[in-house]
């Protein structure tokens, strides 16, 4: 059998203790007499449960500074309740002025945006970290739409009735209709910014189409591996994460193609995400069926593993 040096040209280091984590590193721990290596990890773990279980919830922020607002509860009852997440637990904050579900959400925990929702609402509200204020209405009322950006520069796209292709751009004071999606759809996922956005999946049925927004128009890209609707997202146009959608599948987008990664523990759709999060640190919360208050946190890292020989 070939030795490690014959294969790699170097000997494995013999160390008294495990070194600082560097992906791919292999060493022999002379203290424990074990051969070890550092491997990259991508996994979901449970986060703190929301105070109010719901689906069709709007979302903003990151894994450690998240925001969930609106939604429909098991009663059923459409609510305007907002909750902030600190990486461990959820705390109720100021309610939306207009209770609703199936709205678009994006921005951050201290500068969040909730747009449209319910049947054909046009109302848009911004959050300042404690309360919501109405801004200019969008032009085309809709629900189960997606959005991306901030409270000063944003886009919303898709939705229902039907499978809408309309896209609108927000400049901080007004919404303007801009070029349409190539594939009209509802219940889609969104990520990115007002000038580098990403639309993926959606319905009716289960769609896998992905489109990139460059600030002017949408262009078709490689499809999701698992077609689905009512999914959520995190990250930017060149490093996005798509998860859920009545399935537990999670996929990473690198600006060109989607790759499957670790699944959510619980399949769900109409869940909240982390629009201001990253591909490597995402948040999933709420959703249905059944309507849940469960939260999951996606993280990447490097773990130390022992290499065993049979």
């Amino acid at each position: 059998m070939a030795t490690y040096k014959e294969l790699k040209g170097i000997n494995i280091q013999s160390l008294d203790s495990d070194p600082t984590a560097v992906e791919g590193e292999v060493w022999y721990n002379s203290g424990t007499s074990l051969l070890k290596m550092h491997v990259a990890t991508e996994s979901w773990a449970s986060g703190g449960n929301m105070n109010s279980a719901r689906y069709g919830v709007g979302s903003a922020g990151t894994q450690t500074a998240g925001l969930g607002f609106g939604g429909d509860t098991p009663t059923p009852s459409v609510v305007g309740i907002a909750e902030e997440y600190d990486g461990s637990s959820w705390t109720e904050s100021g309610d939306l002025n207009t209770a609703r579900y199936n709205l678009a959400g994006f921005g951050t925990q201290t500068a969040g945006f909730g747009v449209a929702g319910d049947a054909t609402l046009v109302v848009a509200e911004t959050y300042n970290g404690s309360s919501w204020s109405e801004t200019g209405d969008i032009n085309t009322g809709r629900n189960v739409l997606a959005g991306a950006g901030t409270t000063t520069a944003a886009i919303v796209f898709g939705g229902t009735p039907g499978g809408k292709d309309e896209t609108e751009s927000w400049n901080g004071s007004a919404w303007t209709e801009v070029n349409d999606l190539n594939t009209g759809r509802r219940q889609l996922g969104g990520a990115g910014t007002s000038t580098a956005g990403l639309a993926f999946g959606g319905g009716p049925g289960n769609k896998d189409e992905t489109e990139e927004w460059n600030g002017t128009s949408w262009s078709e890209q490689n499809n999701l591996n698992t077609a689905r609707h009512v999914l959520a997202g995190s990250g930017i146009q060149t490093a996005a994460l798509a998860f859920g959608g009545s399935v537990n599948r999670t996929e990473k987008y690198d600006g060109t193609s989607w790759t499957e990664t670790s699944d959510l523990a619980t399949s769900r759709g109409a869940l909240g995400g982390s629009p201001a999060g990253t591909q490597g640190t995402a948040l999933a919360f709420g959703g249905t069926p059944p309507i849940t208050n469960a939260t999951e946190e996606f993280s990447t890292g490097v773990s130390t593993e022992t290499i065993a020989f049979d």
Partner: protein
Amino acid sequence: MATDKGFFNYWVVENSGKGFITHVDSRKFWISGYPANVWVCDDIPESRDWGARNSAATKTKAEAQTLVTNAVNTAKSDWDDNNVDGETAAEKIGRIGAKPTDITLP
């Protein structure tokens, strides 16, 4: 510990939030949640430790399947009863998603 499943453990336990499933758990064994607080894991020592840590109740596969089926049937009824006057079938799906479907546990 359930004993009729071969490769999986079937548990019932409410998700307690942070720490319920850790990143280490996720890396060590496959775990998937279903309606009625049913959880299915690879049958390995680490998943049994997870069940003990969370005071999960063990179930046979048949028992777990019954719980899930009942929960799905309730969700189907709730879906049937959730209507808005004048709404088409397509509009209903757009509003609350598709009708829940049967789940068969692994």
